[in-house]
């Protein structure tokens, strides 16, 4: 069983194509810009225990319209065994229906993927949040002591060709966007492979606390980040 916050049968912002998205309850960090802080606690009245079979039942009638399934959170890697079981079932369903489904993970990267080889066998890729590169910047933003594992995950996932996308939420003053981009480019160079980078504009909707009234970065600011990334040889999109 997993604690599931909600299921969305049609999502176009959780990976390539049209996807069925599963949002698990519970997160291990506390990002100041989190736009769904209600998913942070491990338990919540609006979250429900669901078995893999429960989710598959909801998924079944959507299959012809989908490219795949994305599991997000909260932080879905806090429930890795269930995730493995779900992905196995999704793959099986796709096979039976003769409609292959891809399985993606949307993660904050704080749990080492290399520790879960069985999961990585059935997971087609990870959309990895790189929230900051400098450890102090990261700690101030997320409340977590270190981003060492995130950095390791970046290289490891790229090395085994499971890095679907790198995501950076852009918020000047709180996120070292340029430093992240420089280090991503360096990692890509050292491994000799690239992955798409998505620059996500900070939006105050849903945010609680100190950033709830913080303005969004301007178009100009976002374009500057994108230009900087281009100069580093990165393929970026803005959302």
């Amino acid at each position: 069983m997993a604690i599931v916050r909600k299921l969305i049968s049609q999502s176009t912002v959780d990976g390539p194509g049209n996807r069925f998205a599963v949002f698990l309850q519970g997160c291990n960090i506390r990002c100041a810009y989190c736009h769904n802080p209600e998913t942070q606690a491990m338990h919540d009245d609006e979250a429900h225990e669901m078995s893999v079979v429960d989710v598959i039942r909801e998924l079944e009638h959507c299959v012809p319209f989908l490219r795949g399934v994305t599991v997000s959170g909260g932080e879905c890697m806090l429930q890795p065994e269930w995730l493995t079981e779900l992905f196995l079932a999704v793959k099986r369903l796709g096979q039976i229906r003769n409609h292959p489904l891809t399985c993606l993970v949307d993660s904050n990267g704080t749990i080492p993927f290399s520790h879960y080889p069985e999961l990585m066998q059935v997971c087609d890729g990870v959309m990895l949040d790189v929230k900051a590169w400098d450890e102090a910047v990261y700690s101030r933003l997320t409340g977590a002591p270190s981003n060492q594992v995130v950095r390791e995950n970046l290289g490891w996932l790229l090395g085994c060709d499971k890095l679907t996308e790198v995501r950076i939420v852009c918020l000047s003053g709180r996120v070292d966007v340029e430093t992240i981009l420089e280090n991503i480019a360096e990692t890509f160079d050292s491994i000799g492979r690239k992955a798409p980078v998505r620059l996500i504009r900070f939006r105050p909707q849903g945010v609680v606390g100190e950033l709830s009234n913080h303005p969004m970065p301007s178009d100009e600011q976002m374009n500057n980040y994108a230009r900087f990334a281009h100069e580093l040889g990165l393929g970026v999109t803005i959302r």
Partner: protein
Amino acid sequence: MSDIYSIVTSQKLSYEQKVVALAHAAEDTLSVLNIPERTRYYMESGVICNLNEGNAPYRPRYIMPDYEKAVRQGVKFLELDPPQDLDELLTFLQVLYRHVPSITTYPVFLGDLDRLIEPFIDGLSDEVVKRKLRNFFIYLDRTITDSFCHANLGPEATRAGRLILDVDRELEQAVPNLTLKYDPAFTPDDYAEQAIYTSLCVANPAICNDVLNRKTYDRYGISSCYNILPIAGGSYTLTRLVLPRLAAMTDDKQEFLTKLLPEAMQCMADYMSERIRFIVEKSGFFESHFLATEGLVERDRFVAMFGLVGLAEAANHFAPGKKYGTDPEADDVAEQIMQAISDFVAHYTCPYCEIADHRLLLHAQVGIDTDHGITSGIRIPVGDEPQSIYDHLRHSARFHRFIPTGCSDILPFDITGKQNPAAVLDIVKGAFEVGQKYVAFYASDSDLVRITGYLVKRSEIEKWNSGQAVLQNTTQLGAPTYASAHLANRKVRGV
């Protein structure tokens, strides 16, 4: 007489619109069709509606010339030799279009434009081709002032097709209406995504399920409001059965299914046969028109479209308190009605419809501007759409299977769809896989909107509503329909 006087003196009709309206008025002074009393009763009560086709048809309603053949052999009557380069081709088509008759007096079908153009663009740069296409499209939009005019693309990707999509997006015009024939085996994803992106910008093109629709005839095209018709042929007539008006005559479903519906269908089918006979035997069209004499249309490739409208309201009438689209009871009644109609046309023999094995072919008619409380064809009424788009499309598929000559859904998408056309393509693939036949989109912020199948600019509707003359005839039809059918309230699908 007062009607004619009001046409002559109108300040809201353009000169061309007056000429067409006067021709209609003249035709309607004749009474040459044999219409039995019971048929008259159903016509006067609005159950059988001939869509103002006129009392003495002198050409088929929809004509689908074989443009590829015309380009190969030239057109003697118009003194046109086969074109040798792109300029000659575009001029050739402009002249030919001008002479293709239809119910609207404008051509309703412009051909497989990508395939017509593709052989003529070798050695020309994209920029050169686009400049020529831009002028061509502006000419079409400003002279074919009626958006029941349709050009087709696909299923294969072509350079011409991609350039047409580019130009269409840049120009934001209501004419021509475009449809991409889509077959996952032949249409590459990136091309389909370009089409969908274009559609989310300018409500054009629509996407047609080529796999299912090509089963109807060997060569087909999409004309007017997504009519699926044989190329080198067309449709003699489209008459429609207004189901809610027939349903209103009884509360007893059995009486409806076993008495009223069969009688009304018999009257309508006989009336259609009468129209077909007049066109073929009396009008002289097939003996004298150059399209027929030069083999660009063939008489035995014409069909007749048996239209129906308002299935939703009719079903709801016999399932009180239930809603077609979301309640199984209402949907089951609708299926019974469709089965009865389908069985009727499968057994009725009509004249001169060789390509359809002498059967009338069902068509989900989209409605007209004077319809109130009558939903297009077999669509779900605005406001009653299922929460899930998948349920909506499955519901469509359930009823699309009955309809060979055109049925469709129109889905407004949230503007975020533009950022992920691949996701919208996944939904289209799913829809077609479950049996949906034709789908059109527009973005919720688009100036161009699809009314019932044709395109109108919201800005033009405002102009017309404020009493000004507008170029497009279809704005006059679209303005009242946009309001009366509550189209602004269509369920916007977030992606």
